[in-house]
């Protein structure tokens, strides 16, 4: 009878266990943490700042697709995209539908980066005073850069004028962090004003480089030079580029081919690190042959190769795909190579262009920058007289397939010509539609013209 009693006790005990387990209903997620922890102290805010870089480095954003989108939208019959990703193919054909998933991915990833940066900026008071400027500068840099990509793709270019009435994108600042409010679009001018403010403040607060993969004083200045070029503010663009060059923290590599498919080089002002364990280089995904781990989706056409002089080292950099025989660029063949965002060479090209336009020679003469820095490195003889057209062609070849083509075409008011079809620089077709997913949940968003 005694053992029986024990068994009854076990049964009754079970019911107590059940009641005692009520705290199981208040779970702690071992994989993630909450706001209170992530922004609680110096170390955690800095860790969240790394999270903002990670958001920037997403494949759909600075992991490569942003730069790919610029190049295929401005293909100009110089490249053919023959891949099967229908949304990417529609961007290439300038036949985007408002549901385009790649368009939506740029939008969502840019705002994700902005939101992480705003979260960091909201918690600066807990950051050690000695590091506060640096943390703030990095967050402002990431926010400014993200708005810059948004405004370039989702709005008419600055060069199209009407900047105080043309619609930009919704402006989300520190007070708007994590907010699901239905915010309308600010104007193009308002967004540019914010970008200039963020990057100017970042340049002032940040430490000098080089710091591989991180925001520096020079990286902020380099982006400012791009922003001012879009605004056709040539004195400011020239000076920003000149500050990067004269910092002396970067140098032009002796061989053009060494600039690519590598980690950080002395020429990299800003890049996105990629390794076998983390990061992605989607320029390789789309440009590289399948044998190099790419999809072999983008083929370089003869009309592009014809732009180079015969003994240009950059021409030798193209190669036939070992599989299909189509021509590929040698810039993106290492899937674990960093995504090169800004190289020092671009600063020389920007400085030369602005000096030429303004008839100045801040830092150096345009002839010196073009002949001795850019052309000399790739084995080309110096030009006798350097014209603006020479500088712009040099820029187009030097930076080919690196993500600048669409934005340069727009600011220079150059048309994109595909076969028999001409797309003027301010064509609606060269502007992304506001993603349908956001139009659906935010009735205050107005769709871009041409997409209704």
């Amino acid at each position, binding site marked *: 009878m005694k053992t029986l009693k024990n068994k009854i006790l076990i*049964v009754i005990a*079970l*019911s107590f*266990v059940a009641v005692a*387990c*009520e705290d*199981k*209903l208040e*779970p702690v*997620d071992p*994989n*993630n*943490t*909450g*706001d209170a*922890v*992530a922004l609680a102290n110096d170390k*955690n805010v800095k*860790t969240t*700042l790394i*999270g903002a*870089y*990670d*958001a920037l480095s997403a494949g759909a954003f600075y992991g490569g697709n942003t730069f790919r989108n610029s190049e295929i939208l401005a293909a100009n019959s110089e490249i053919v*995209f*023959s891949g*099967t990703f*229908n*949304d990417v*193919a529609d961007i290439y*054909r300038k*036949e985007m*539908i408002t549901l385009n*998933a790649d368009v939506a991915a740029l939008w*969502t990833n840019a*705002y994700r980066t902005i*939101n*992480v940066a705003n979260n960091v900026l909201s918690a600066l008071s807990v950051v050690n005073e000695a590091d506060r400027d640096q943390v703030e500068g990095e967050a402002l840099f990431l926010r400014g850069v993200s708005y810059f990509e948004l405004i370039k793709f989702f709005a008419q270019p600055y060069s199209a004028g009407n900047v105080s009435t043309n619609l930009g994108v*919704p402006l*989300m600042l520190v007070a708007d962090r*994590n*907010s699901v*409010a*239905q915010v309308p679009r600010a104007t193009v001018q308002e967004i540019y004003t914010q970008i200039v403010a963020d990057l100017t403040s970042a340049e002032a607060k940040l430490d000098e480089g080089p710091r591989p*993969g991180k925001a520096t004083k020079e990286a902020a200045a380099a982006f400012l030079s791009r922003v001012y070029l879009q605004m056709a503010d040539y004195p400011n663009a020239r000076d920003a580029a000149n500050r990067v060059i004269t910092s002396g923290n970067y140098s032009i590599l002796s061989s053009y081919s060494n600039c690519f498919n590598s980690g950080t080089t002395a020429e990299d002002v800003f890049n996105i*690190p990629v390794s*076998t*364990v*983390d990061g992605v280089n989607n320029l390789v995904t789309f440009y590289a042959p*399948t044998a190099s*781990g790419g999809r072999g989706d983008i083929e370089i056409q003869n009309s592009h190769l014809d732009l180079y002089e015969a003994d240009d080292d950059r021409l030798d950099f193209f190669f036939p795909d*070992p*599989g299909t025989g189509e021509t590929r660029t040698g810039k993106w063949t290492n899937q674990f190579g960093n995504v090169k965002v800004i190289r020092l060479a671009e600063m020389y090209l920007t400085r030369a262009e602005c000096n030429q336009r303004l008839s100045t020679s801040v830092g150096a003469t345009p002839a010196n920058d073009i002949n001795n820095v850019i052309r000399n490195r790739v084995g080309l003889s110096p030009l006798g007289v350097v014209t603006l057209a020479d500088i712009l062609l040099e820029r187009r070849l030097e930076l080919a397939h690196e993500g600048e083509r669409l934005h340069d075409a727009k600011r220079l008011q150059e048309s994109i010509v595909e076969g*028999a079809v001409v797309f003027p620089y301010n064509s609606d077709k060269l502007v992304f*539609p506001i993603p349908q*997913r*956001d139009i*659906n*949940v935010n009735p205050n968003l107005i769709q871009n013209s*041409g997409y209704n």
Partner: protein
Amino acid sequence: MRESAYNNDLADGYDPINNPADYAGSWLEFWEDYMDYLAGDTDWRTLETDTDWEKEAYQKANITSFDLTASGGNDKTTFAFSGGYTNQDGILIGNSFKRVSGRLNLDHKATDRLSFQANIAISKSMNNRLAADNAFATPLQLVAQAPITPVRDKQGNLFDDALNPSMSYYPATVELENSNFLVSVFRNIVSLGATYKLTDDLRVIGEYGFDLLTQNDDRYQNEFTQTGRAVGGYGQSRWVQAFNYTARAMLAYDKVFNQHSLSIIGGTELQEKSIDVTDAQGQGFPLAELKKLTSAAEPVFITSTLTEEAFLSFFARANYKFKDKYLLSLSGRSDASSKFGPDNKYGFFPAASAGWILTQEDFLAGKNTVSFLKFRASYGVTGNAGIPNYRYLAQYSGVAYGGESGLVPSQIPNPELRWEKTAQFDIGFDFGFFNDRLTGEVDYYNKQTTDLLLNTPVPATSGFQTQFRNVGSLENKGFELVLNYSILKNADWSISIGGNYASNRNKILSLNGDETRIGPTGSRFLNAVIVGQPIGAFYGREYAGANPANGDALFYMNRTPTQTEIDNGTAFIVPNGVYGDRYVTRSFNSAESIVLGNPTPTGIYGFNTNISYKGIELSVLFQGVTGNKVFDGAGSFMSANGRYEDNSTVDQMRRWQNPGDITDVPQARLYGNNGAQSSSRFLYDGSYLRLKTLTVAYNVPNAISSKLSLTSARIYITGQNLLTFTNYKGWDPEVNTDFNANNVNLSNDFYAAPQPKNFTVGIKVGF
């Protein structure tokens, strides 16, 4: 495809066929060069190769299966055990499944008052898995390969897209010969119970059961595979341990007095689930033979996660019966789930049902015409907590950038998150007529779901894309009818037929506030949640057909166009009433989206017959559905008039070619998107009628089986899915592709594997 390239040339102002000077640099030249590539070491000009790639995707599949069961015992202890072995090939190349299992059930009466039960089941299964439907490596994506491409070159090596290249896409043939992907599942299910009778009527019951699942995904893709080739081979080992237990303590009371019978049970239950995952992936293997991660030069991905959930319930149920003709049941349970916010964990779910067996009443008793008649009605509320864990919390997740660890906000909190509730009303009859020769049931149900749990999109400007919310309400109603009729039954013959029909209407009644639509969320699939429509309704542009004048794909405007749109030619009416008097447009964005169809069948029916003569049996079961549509997401690739390098479906033969052609397939344009966007063009009627099973069996007469010391013996042959009648052009209308399926994304095809047609031959013996 050559035509599509030539069309591009004509559009660009060149004519390489009639003007040879235009050939160099033309699209036609580009494509003919590409065909040289696709043909590998053969010549497409002489049609040397004509590969049926669809056939290459399938294999003949065999199934072998053995089962053994036994039971016995004495008045104190009884047992039953069973063992089984199954070895089954999939119908797609490289797919197979093996399973061994054993089970033991024990009942023991320790004393008159105390008894114990134990059930133990153990199994191991091994599945050679395939890539998901949206991967090039999945066998059915072989249909995208060109028929002019041979499977192998003349030396016998497989062709692919990179190492021995003659293809646009990586083929499953190479994946299969150079990889393994074995999923092993070890499962132990144990339940233990003890019952102690406090009095003759009152029992205490304690139960404890657990389900321990251990799974290993062992994957290796060598240097010839798409994943492995640029990195020297790629390996993965993923371990999952899922532990799920339930502990229950109950008090039960049963009493029969006079003509009343009462049983009451109440108790408490705790359920906990935890899933622990460790995943490691590495690359750079020295030899293809060394497939384990220990040989990988570089670890590239390592993660482990743990998620836990708990349910705590209190419940009570009472059943009452009077004179075996009036039945009443009442129950209530309070469930608390760890998935909901602090103030919303508990849900209360009551239910009541009543039954009346009319044939027990004097006025019907003993009548053969109406041999059985029961009326029943019930009402009850149930709860659904079917969402992932931790969805009400604010979350930051760990990430890595440049070798440093970081945190990103990954979820906005929703403390309001609560149980989804469904109130269901049911009314019905069970009946038997003519001495139960005709039996059946009729049911009507009405289900009202409120606080529908959905992962809903939020403005991405927040930094987030979705949030789990209780967003609205949903209605499901319908009726069901089942009839079985025994035509003949005597010593030698037995013939019966039966049929069933169920109708269901489901409709979203409301969403958040004045919101009327959520989704579609991407460009490839069309499912949306729309007020007044069934859940997952297809929503998108309505495709019209090709413009007879120029072969452009046209969509119906489905709205009144503006004067500007009419003036600039965006919207127009095709002459001669080809598309009626409706406005059409070639601009996809200009056309208004409309509701295009329902992914869920509104009618499900079946009929069966069983015929036996002496020991020979024949049984046939047909099943069918009506009222639903199937969207073929692969249509944008395989029926897209030259958009990609994919081989095309036969309907592309009727493409627009000359002015005046009236057809639904637009002009072929190489790499051009001429109507390949997701629209009603790729939406098909999903109704079907299918011969689900057909069985012929022979029961060996006792006189023979007893000579073999057997108590019974049966030989049978069963066929499944032998015939399907449908208008759907894909492989199988009964489909939902694996890689994006959820409670909204319904009825989509995307290179999904069809259900197999199979034959089973079996022998069943009893000792």
